[in-house]
């Protein structure tokens, strides 16, 4: 399998705060890699560096060959003064209405084509963002917290969709999540990040590793009820002395 990118020894600080410390990772074509970690662990910064939106203080990201990247940002904030429909939003990436309709059908919301973007629910917004990323026919899909603002059933459906899309297109996927249990079924590799790479491997290996337990707390590792997870996660962070904001 070909490598989509190699990130080597990335280091980043903002002011005197160290965000990323010597982080390296690779992504192969067709592979799903999930970054997990507590709030403030540097997940989004790492993604932004890989996308070229942020320059690291040290280290680099190498793309062996130029690839098309589809990006699904964490959220979409559109001012209500902007009367923009879903079709108008998608047209910003591809002016062909046929392509836009197909992309929207692929994410299973074809009926929302003429809906104003500001009238979408959390789950619908995430799917529209995914459709826009797909319009680029990406070889690498970067998803920053793709299930944010989506209810539990919707989260599972969205992860299932993401893994279907990987199967159909063969694109590599880099995904940010803060819930390992939800993404377990949908990911090949996991990197547990807390400013540095704490541990990495298959989801099973990571959830069994001591570094993961130390970061998220032992109860979280065994716990499957997700509503309490968020709460535990914060407790776990404070327990291991990490800063978060």
């Amino acid at each position, binding site marked *: 399998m070909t490598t989509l990118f190699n990130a080597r020894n990335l280091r980043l600080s903002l002011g005197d705060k160290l965000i990323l410390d010597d982080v390296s990772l690779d992504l192969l074509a067709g592979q799903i890699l999930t970054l997990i970690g507590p709030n403030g662990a540097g997940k989004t910064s790492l993604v932004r560096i890989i996308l070229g939106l942020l320059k690291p203080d040290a280290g680099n990201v190498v793309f062996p060959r130029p690839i098309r990247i589809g*990006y699904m940002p964490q959220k979409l904030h559109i001012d209500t*003064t*902007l*009367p*923009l429909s879903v079709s*108008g939003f998608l*047209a910003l990436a591809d002016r062909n209405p046929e392509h836009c309709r197909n992309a929207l059908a692929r994410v299973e919301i074809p009926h929302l084509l003429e809906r104003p973007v500001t*009238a979408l629910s959390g789950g619908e917004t995430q799917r529209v963002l995914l459709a826009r990323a797909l319009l680029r026919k990406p070889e690498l899909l970067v998803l920053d917290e793709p299930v944010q603002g989506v209810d539990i059933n919707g989260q599972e459906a969205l992860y299932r969709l993401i893994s279907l899309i990987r199967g159909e297109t063969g694109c590599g996927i880099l995904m940010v999540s803060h819930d390992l249990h939800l993404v377990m079924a949908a990911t090949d590799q996991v990197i547990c990040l807390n400013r540095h790479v704490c541990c990495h491997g298959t989801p099973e290996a990571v959830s069994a590793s001591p570094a993961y337990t130390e970061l998220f707390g032992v109860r979280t590792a065994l716990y499957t009820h997700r509503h309490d997870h968020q709460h535990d996660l914060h407790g776990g962070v404070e327990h291991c002395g990490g800063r978060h904001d």
Partner: protein
Amino acid sequence: MTDFLLLALLAGLGVALVSGPLGAFVVWRRMAYFGDTLAHSALLGIAAGLWLSIAPGLAVILICLLIALGLLALQRQHTLATDTLLGILSHSSLALGIIAMYLIPGARVDLEALLFGDLLAVTPLETLGIWVAAGVVLALIYRLWTPMLAITVHEELARVEGINVGWVKAALMLTLALVIAIAMKVVGVLLITALLVIPAATARRFASSPSSMAMLGSVAGALAVCLGVAASWWWDTPMGPSIVLGAGLLFAASLLRRQRA
């Protein structure tokens, strides 16, 4: 109708035409205060033009771009909020502009005309200049419509999709500086932002897409110019403020209609 009135109407309509699309961007990007700052600095531009004997329009554009660059540099310091920085730049440049006017030896400057516009004194050449500048602005916005809209909707997404965000923003600044240079004559530096923001806000209530909002904004702007010129003719009111008040009344009337999503 007399010639000077027709000329005033023509010049006003030229500015109204661009106030729709550019005003829409000012509203969407929440640049109203920024526009105000650039407009205030235009007075400094006029003074600089007189000092250095260069064309006032050109001097205004240059000073506006300088102030925009100055703001970018100050924003990088991350020490003060942008609206505070704008407040500093806006009012110090306005004050400096007024003082510079008084200090220019032998210059007889009609400060009121600069602050509130002097549409009745517009010359045929100036009217032509307004339409040429308006044409350039419209062409730029038409050409860059999709990238301009894309960076307004989500800047980072646009960047990942290959849009050169820096250049598109620079183009937006340039169009804003151009419009300020031509709108000065019509409504004066203190009221320029009104002509950008109010017609766009009025259009929002009727628009179902970004492009229809831009076009309806031009229509609202043109109506405001007609109202202002007519009021000024019938009741002898100052023309610039009459145009702005006309825009305000149109907006008030638009409130009667429910906003489209």
